[in-house]
């Protein structure tokens, strides 16, 4: 239990450091990006000299990256993430409005992807038919060779929900690992012996296979969250779903760099949390085994 607490504390520290460093790196890169010093609002003929000066002063204050980052973190701690330059709305409002849809999309997409993965991988390991194995490998390989954006376009064309598109983008990656893990587990000598002695398939699966493959599958599950977040960008952008992925795409097209920094921090946080969560659960599972 003590070791688990240390592990969680270590992960929390690493997570905090990575998010802070990631945010600082993004803010620095934004300052190096061509056109950072240009503000389109200065072209507005309705602004008087005082307003222009205020804009100029605000930009000068933001030029020092450490000063900007410190004040940004300070404001973020109070829930103020600043405004979006392109959409003219507070970033907090934009994220709050769009996050539920993205989370729902990711949740359903990941659930479908893992259902498909485990069904195909388990049946490939159970049946041990080369034809079935080849067919499922070809199926996953075909999806692996399709760009995520094309799958998103095809989902629009065939009127398929965006979550299914995410599932089909994530599935080939998870399937390869899950299939190899399960096939390897089923070829272990003690499982072959158990089968030869006539032990039921369900008993073999839950008593001998699941405990062996769970830690590795949990690690793959953590990575699959990152894959799904990446897949959400083309799916939301091309399917017209107003989520965070679409917001990131709009921010990239409009070069709304402050908004992109905020989304970068959010995405880093989500993917790191998923990976740390998977690692901690895996640690608990291993602890229960021993």
């Amino acid at each position, binding site marked *: 239990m003590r070791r688990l607490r240390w592990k969680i504390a270590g992960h929390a520290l690493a997570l905090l450091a990575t998010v802070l460093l990631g945010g600082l790196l993004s803010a620095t*890169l934004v300052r190096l990006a061509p056109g950072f010093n240009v503000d389109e609002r200065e072209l507005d003929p309705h602004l008087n000299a005082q307003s222009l000066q205020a804009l100029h002063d605000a930009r000068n204050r933001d030029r020092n990256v450490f000063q900007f980052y410190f004040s940004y973190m300070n404001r973020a701690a109070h829930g103020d993430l600043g405004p979006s330059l392109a959409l003219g709305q507070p970033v907090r409002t934009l994220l709050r409005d769009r996050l539920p849809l993205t989370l729902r999309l990711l949740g359903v997409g990941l659930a479908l992807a893992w259902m498909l993965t485990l069904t195909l991988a388990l049946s490939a390991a159970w049946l041990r038919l080369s034809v079935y194995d080849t067919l499922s490998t070809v199926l996953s390989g075909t999806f692996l*060779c*399709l*760009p995520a954006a*094309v799958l998103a376009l095809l989902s629009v064309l065939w009127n398929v929900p965006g979550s299914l598109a995410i599932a089909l983008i994530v599935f080939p990656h998870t399937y390869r690992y899950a299939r190899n893990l399960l096939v390897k587990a089923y070829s272990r000598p003690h499982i072959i012996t158990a089968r030869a002695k006539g032990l039921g398939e369900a008993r073999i699966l839950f008593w001998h296979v699941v405990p062996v493959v769970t830690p590795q599958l949990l690690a793959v599950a953590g990575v699959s969250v990152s894959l799904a977040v990446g897949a959400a960008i083309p799916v939301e952008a091309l399917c017209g779903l107003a989520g965070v992925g679409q917001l990131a795409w709009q921010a990239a097209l409009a070069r709304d760099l402050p908004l992109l920094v905020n989304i970068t921090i959010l995405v880093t946080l989500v993917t790191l949390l998923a990976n740390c969560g998977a690692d901690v659960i895996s640690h608990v599972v291993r602890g229960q085994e021993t």
Partner: protein
Amino acid sequence: MSFWRKLACVVLVLVIGASLAANWLAPAGYAKQYREAADAPPSRMHWLGTDEIGRDRFARVLYGTRISLLLAPAAALLSTLMAALIGGLAGYLGGIWARMAMSVTDLFMSLPWLFLLITARALMPLNVSPLVSVLVTFLLLGFLGWTAAARVLCTTAGSLRASDFVRQARAAGLPGQRLFWIHVVPNLKPVLYAQFWISIPVFILSEANLGILGLGVAEPMPSWGSLLKELEGLVSVGEEPWKFVPLILLVVVVTSFQVLLSRQEELAA
């Protein structure tokens, strides 16, 4: 070599050959407009029809294939060299250097690949000439795609550093630099080759994703990404099936790479 590997080789040679011969196969070029035949179906003059502004789709597919298939290996070479430099050196030096390099790698890898790409692409100017957009897109892929390879190389170089023959060479008084070039680098070569070949299909797919999202190669220059963007306007698959030719070509090429690379992936892992 198995039948499927031979077939993959033949397919890749044919596709690369055809794309290199684009100047002879489609002498009019990828930007010439046939305004009287805009959005035309396939005919003897335009084998794959024309796009909505009257450009020959067959020519654009050939030139687009050339751009994607020549620049993806260039980006893969760049990312492999960066991985070798960062990962290989960090692994060989060990200690704080390896930890620092791996922390940077973790930072990059904590972001989903496509998200990292569009964020970095947004930092570059978007209204640039087509040639600059091609360079920016593939340089970006090369500069950002080194992290996974660096991790593998760092581990490999670390285990080489601790191997008996390197220890013996060090004990025999071989200087560090000489040791690195003579004993470590030659042993990293198989992993480097594997990482290089694995990166190519990944970069082809990434460019396609960026192109469809409007953040890739700029018009009128064709690439698989910009050609696939045409699918956005389709209402049904059966309506204009010839528009799927770039997609079929991309899937065939990436599949061929996957078939050829199945052994390289095992080696890289």
